[in-house]
C-alpha cells in the first residue's frame, strides 16, 4: 500500500462545495434581485413621476377653459379667483404651491399661492418659474414640465399647459409639492428592498437545498468513498441513486473501485505467489550455499590435512606454530619432532601399502597420546611433529617419552595386516622461547635433537641441548 501523503488533496482544508454553492447561489440571487429590483424601483419611480406629471397636466387642462374664458373677457379678478380656488383645493396626492397664468410672451398676468399665511409676497421665481421656463412654456404647444428642488431640498414639479379654448388664451403654470410622491416612491422602494431580500433569502435557501441534494451530497459521498479507498477499504462504494451526470460519475467511480479492488487482489495474489517462489529459491540457494560452504570447508580441511593420515599437514603445522611462536610473553611451547625409525627398510620390505598403513597407525597412536589443545601434523615422509602449547620442556619430554613408549609397545599386526615386527620412533624436543626465538629456529633445534636421538641409537626421546659456549 502506498504511504499516505499528508499534503495530498484529501487532507485539504477550506470552504466546501456546499458553502461555495450557497454563497454563489445567494450572491447570484441577490445580484439578480438587486438588478431587477433596481430597475423595477426605477421604473416605479418613473411611473409615479409620470403619473404626477400627467395628473398635474390634466388638472391644469380642466382649469384651462374657465381661465381662458376669464382671460377672453379680460376678467382678471375672476382669473385670480379661479387660481386661488385651485391653489387652495390642490391636486390629488399633490399640493399646489403656486399657480399662475402667463400671457403669450410668458409674463405672469395672474397668480395665486397655496399658503398665503407666510406673509411673503410670492414671486414666480420663488417657485422655479424663471424667465427661460416661462418663455418655453408660453411658446410650447405642449405641456412643459420640470422638476426642481426648493432651498430646503424638497422636490417640486412645475407643469405648464396651454390654456386653449378655441384660441390659445395663455399658459397656465403650476408648481406642485412632490413630497407625497417622493414618500410613496420611498415606501415602495423599501418595501421592494424588503421583499427582494426575503425573496432572495427564500430563493437562496431553496437553491442551496436543491444544489445540496443534487450536487453536494453526491460529491460528499464520492469524496468519502474515495477517502475510504485511499485508507485501504477497497470495498467502499459511493451511493448516488441519481440518474444524472453525478449518478453516472458515481457508477463509473464504483466500477473503477471494483476494478481496482479486483486488480489489487489479483496483484496481491501474484505477489504472494512470487514471494513463495522467491522463498523457495532462497531456500534452494541457502542449501547450495551450505553445500558450497561445506565444500569450501572440505577444501580448507583438505588444504590443511594430510591425505594419508588425516592429521594436519605441514602447512597447517607451520601456521599453528607461527601463532604460538614469535609473540613475546607467550607461555612456553614445546615442539616434538617424531621420525619413524627405519621406515625405508620397512617400505622396501613390505611395500608401500603396508608402509602407509604403518604411518596411519603411528599417527593414530600419537593423536591418542596428545591433549585436545595440542596439534599433531605430518611433517613429511615418515616424519611427524607435535606442537604442545603452554608446555615446558620437561613436560614435553614426558609426553614424548610416553608417545615413544606407546608406539614401541604397540602391536602393528592388525594395523599393517601382516607381522612387521617392532616399530619405534625417535623424538627430538625443543622449546620456545627457551631454545629458540623463532619457529624456523625451533624446528631446527627440534630437528637437531631428533638427529641426536637417531645418532644415539634410535627409539628414544632427546631434548635439545644448548651447546656450550664456544
Amino acid at each position: 500500500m502506498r504511504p499516505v501523503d499528508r499534503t495530498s488533496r484529501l487532507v485539504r482544508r477550506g470552504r466546501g462545495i456546499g458553502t461555495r454553492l450557497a454563497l454563489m447561489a445567494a450572491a447570484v440571487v441577490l445580484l439578480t434581485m438587486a438588478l431587477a429590483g433596481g430597475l423595477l424601483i426605477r421604473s416605479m419611480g418613473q411611473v409615479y413621476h409620470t403619473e404626477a406629471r400627467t395628473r398635474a397636466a390634466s388638472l391644469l387642462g380642466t382649469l384651462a377653459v374657465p381661465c381662458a374664458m376669464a382671460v377672453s373677457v379680460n376678467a382678471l379678478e375672476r382669473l385670480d379667483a379661479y387660481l386661488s380656488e385651485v391653489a387652495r383645493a390642490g391636486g390629488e396626492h399633490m399640493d399646489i404651491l403656486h399657480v399662475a397664468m402667463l400671457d403669450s410672451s410668458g409674463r405672469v398676468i395672474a397668480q395665486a399661492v397655496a399658503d398665503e399665511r407666510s406673509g411673503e409676497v410670492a414671486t414666480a421665481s420663488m417657485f422655479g418659474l424663471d424667465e427661460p421656463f416661462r418663455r418655453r412654456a408660453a411658446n410650447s404647444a405642449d405641456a412643459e414640465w420640470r422638476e426642481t428642488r426648493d432651498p430646503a431640498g424638497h422636490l417640486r414639479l412645475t407643469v405648464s399647459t396651454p390654456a386653449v379654448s378655441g384660441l390659445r388664451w395663455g399658459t397656465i403654470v403650476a408648481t406642485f409639492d412632490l413630497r407625497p410622491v417622493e414618500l410613496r416612491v420611498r415606501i415602495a422602494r423599501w418595501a421592494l428592498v424588503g421583499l427582494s431580500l426575503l425573496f432572495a433569502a427564500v430563493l437562496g435557501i431553496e437553491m442551496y437545498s436543491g444544489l445540496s441534494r443534487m450536487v453536494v451530497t453526491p460529491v460528499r459521498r464520492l469524496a468519502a468513498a474515495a477517502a475510504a479507498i485511499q485508507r485501504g477499504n477497497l470495498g467502499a462504494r459511493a451511493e448516488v441513486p441519481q440518474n444524472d451526470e453525478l449518478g453516472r460519475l458515481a457508477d463509473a467511480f464504483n466500477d473503477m473501485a471494483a476494478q481496482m479492488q479486483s486488480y489489487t487482489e489479483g496483484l496481491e495474489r501474484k505477489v504472494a505467489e512470487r514471494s513463495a517462489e522467491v522463498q523457495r529459491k532462497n531456500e534452494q540457494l541457502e542449501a547450495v550455499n551450505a553445500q558450497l560452504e561445506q565444500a569450501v570447508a572440505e577444501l580448507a580441511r583438505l588444504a590443511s590435512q594430510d591425505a594419508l593420515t588425516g592429521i594436519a599437514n605441514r602447512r597447517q603445522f607451520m601456521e599453528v606454530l607461527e601463532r604460538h611462536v614469535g609473540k613475546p610473553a607467550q607461555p612456553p611451547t614445546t615442539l616434538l619432532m617424531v621420525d619413524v625409525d627405519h621406515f625405508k627398510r620397512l617400505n622396501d620390505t613390505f611395500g608401500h601399502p603396508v608402509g602407509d598403513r604403518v604411518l596411519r597407525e603411528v599417527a593414530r597412536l600419537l593423536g591418542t597420546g596428545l591433549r585436545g589443545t595440542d596439534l599433531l601434523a605430518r611433517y613429511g615422509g615418515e616424519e611427524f611433529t607435535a606442537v604442545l602449547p603452554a608446555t615446558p620442556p620437561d613436560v614435553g619430554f614426558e609426553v614424548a617419552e610416553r608417545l615413544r613408549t606407546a608406539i614401541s609397545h604397540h602391536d602393528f599386526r592388525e594395523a599393517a595386516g601382516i607381522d612387521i615386527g617392532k616399530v619405534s620412533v625417535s623424538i627430538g624436543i625443543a622449546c620456545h622461547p627457551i631454545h629458540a626465538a623463532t619457529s624456523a629456529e625451533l624446528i631446527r633445534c627440534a630437528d637437531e635433537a631428533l638427529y641426536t636421538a637417531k645418532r644415539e641409537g634410535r627409539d628414544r626421546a632427546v631434548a635439545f641441548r644448548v651447546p656450550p659456549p664456544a
Partner: protein
Amino acid sequence: MRRLALLPLLLVPLLLACEPPLDAGSIAMHQPAPPPPPTGAALLLQPEDLPPGQTVLRLGVTPYSSPAALTAELQPIANWLTGVLGVQVQLKIASNYEDLVAQFAAGQVDVALFSPLSYVMARRRVPDLHLLAQTLSYGAASYTSYILVRVDDPAQGLRDLKGRRMAWVDPFSTAGYLFPYDALLVAGVDPERDLRSTLFAGTHEAALAALVAGQVDAAAVSSSTLVLKRGDPVHGLDLGSVRILARAGRIPYDATCARPAIPVSGVRKISWALQNLDTRSQQGRAVLATAEGITGWIPAADDTYDGVRAALVRVQKHRDQFGRPEVGRATR
C-alpha cells in the same frame, strides 16, 4: 471567492442609487394649436375678391337685441373689418332669424353671423355657402344648455319635470329650445304633452328671470348666460337660488358664413381677418368690448354642427306629430 461574497453588498447602493435625477420635458397635447393666419396687406380685398361690380360688404346679423343696441355692439367690428379688408363693411340687421336666412339666400347680405340653428337652416337653403369661421364666445368654442330649477325644487331628473311649468327662450334658439327639447324627449318627457305650461321668454336672461321669480318651475338657458351672470351681478339676479338640473348637448357657437357668390380668394381673406380679431390683444379687446360675448373667431368645419342637425331632425319629427310648424319657420 472573497470577491463574490461582496456582491450582495451591491444590493443596497444599487437600490438606493435609483433616485431619479431632476428632469424636464414635454407632454404632447392632443390638440395642437392651428397656425396663425396671415395679417396686414395680405388681407386687403381686391376687386377680384368680390363679385363683379361689388364695392361694399354687407354683414348681416340676427336681431337678438334692439337695432340700436345691436348697432352699438357690432359697429366696431364692422369698422375694424373695413380697415383690415380695405372695403366698406355695412352692418345689416335682419328682422328675425328666418329673415336673415332668407336675405342670405337671396344674396342681400354677403356675410352673415348665424346662430347654430340658423346656420343649419341656411345650409339647407344654400348648400354651397362658405363657412368662414366659428365665433368664440367668452373664450369658449362651444357651450351647453342648462335646464335650471330653483334650489329648493324637488326635481331630481328631467322626468320629474312632467306636469311642471317650463320656460323656453325662443323656438329658434339652439340652447334655449332645440337642445333642451331634445333632451326631454330622450329622457322620456314629451314637451308637447307632459308639461303643464310652456313660456317663450324671448331672451336667456328673461327665461332665467322668470325662473328666479317663480313664474315657471324650470328654465332652459345657454350656459354662457350663467357663466356671464356669475361674474356679473349687474342684473340683480339671485343665481344662488337656482341649480342645474341637467345639461343638454354640446353646442358650437355661431357660424359666420359668406354667400356662394363671394370668390374663394375673398372668402379666405375675410376668414383670416375674422381669425385675427380676438380679445387677446388690447386692440382686439377694444374692438370687441361692446360685442356681447364675442371674444374671437376660429377656423370652422361644417361637421361641427352635425349635433345641431341631428337634434333638429329629432325635434322636428316629434313636432310634426302634433302639427306644429317647422322649427325654422317659427316666429317669436
